């Protein structure tokens, strides 16, 4: 079995007196694609933000290849360089061109030569079909294009693990595909990823392992076929049914 890239043990996260995640443990192995699903507000996004230390945690620990991820450690910026994160609303930097958005972090934090990174950035942009947009401004791009740029911006850091936080939730339906295709492509290349999504068919296609987060903890954990065809718990069945119901509703509307 491949080595664990990320290990979360006994993680507890509270906002004031509200417990979001409780005693949650999870390991992600090299090359694995873990998809996290669950109803809104179940703490999926919070979990991803904890992994990146964008949230402080009240219990447990998170390690990236053995290194503790913590606000109290000086090496947090270096660890974050190894954790690529893509946000729901892209969060490109509006005052920088597409290319500058991508170059900023590797040049400033990894001290790589601008020329080399530039070549790599253009190659990556070409791979996601946006080479001609290198000198555009974020505001000139569609949502799907912005999200693909955001993925490139994360990839150029050569992260050990990629976190995707509902990256298609803000997109118009016709743009969802172009973003998901890029992610499936990354999975094919063997990238280690944790994906939070509401796109169930995508989850089924891309995941090595599906995790259902409910009631502050991991309720069910299985391979995608089992999860979608033979969910073990009543709540998982209910969750999947809710989804179907929503879809029918949407189709009628």
């Amino acid at each position: 079995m491949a080595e664990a890239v990320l290990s979360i043990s006994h993680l507890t996260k509270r906002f004031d007196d509200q417990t979001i995640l409780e005693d949650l443990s999870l390991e992600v192995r090299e090359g694995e694609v873990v998809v996290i699903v669950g109803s809104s507000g179940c703490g999926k996004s919070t979990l991803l933000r904890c992994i990146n230390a964008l949230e402080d945690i009240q219990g447990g620990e998170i390690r990236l290849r053995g290194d503790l991820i913590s606000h109290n450690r000086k090496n947090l910026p270096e660890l974050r360089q190894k954790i690529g994160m893509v946000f729901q609303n892209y969060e490109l930097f509006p005052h920088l061109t597409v290319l500058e958005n991508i170059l900023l972090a590797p040049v400033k934090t990894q001290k790589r030569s601008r020329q080399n990174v530039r070549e790599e950035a253009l190659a990556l942009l070409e791979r996601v079909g946006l080479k001609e947009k290198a000198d555009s401004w974020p505001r000139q791009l569609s949502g799907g294009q912005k999200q693909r740029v955001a993925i490139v911006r994360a990839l150029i850091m050569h992260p050990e693990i990629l976190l995707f936080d509902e990256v298609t939730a803000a997109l118009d339906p016709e743009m969802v595909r172009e973003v998901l295709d890029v992610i499936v492509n990354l999975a094919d290349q063997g990238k280690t990823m944790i994906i939070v999504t509401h796109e169930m068919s995508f989850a089924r296609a891309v995941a090595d392992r599906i995790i259902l987060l409910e009631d502050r903890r991991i309720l069910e954990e299985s391979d995608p076929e089992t999860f979608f065809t033979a969910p073990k718990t009543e709540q998982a069945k209910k969750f999947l049914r809710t989804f179907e119901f929503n879809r029918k509703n949407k189709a009628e509307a």
Partner: protein
Amino acid sequence: MPDLGLEVLWKGKNFVRLLGGLWVALRISLIAAGISVVLGILLGVAASRKRSVSSVVLRVWLGIIHIMPQMVLLFLMYFGTTRLFSWNLSGEVAAVIVFSLWGTAEMGDLVRGAVSSIPAIQRESAEALGLKPAQVYRWIILPQAVRRLIPQSINLITRMIKTTSLVTLIGVVEILKVAQQIIEANRKASPNAAFGVYLAIFVMYYLACRPLSLAAKKLEKHWR
């Protein structure tokens, strides 16, 4: 057509003297503006953290500056502190200090507002890329904040230039003082000199401030 009293301007070195006075006014306001921008950015960034000591300092400081007429501050600095601490301040230095106190407070508040208006997730996405806090400010927060700041800070600087007209009251010979001297000296020969000279001052102030607002417009367009 009535005598506009413009001929006074061409007498002797009057015009050059007026320009010299304008330069004194501009020098005071531009030095103070430079100090205010630098200190204001530092103070504003520090004060943008909620519940920080700096945010309280800024609030109190701003409160005092807002209540006090600039003239009182000038008098306090020039007549008051020189007596109290028995130090020697030229009128011009006193003016630069007062204008910097004023400008730093207002600039600090503008910076604080602009920095706070940048969505938290912009900072987070920069941190997620592994940028250190100082780098996040330098490359992500400040460039975006500065873009939002330009109109109001240009407004502040032009207000400073205009307010230099008060420093004549602490004995600085700036453009208004020169104007009064010229008008006084020519009271007999050109009784209408007041109109001509003040008209010239109006034009000079306009020409001094106009490029600033043009530059601001250009920057805004460039960064749109």
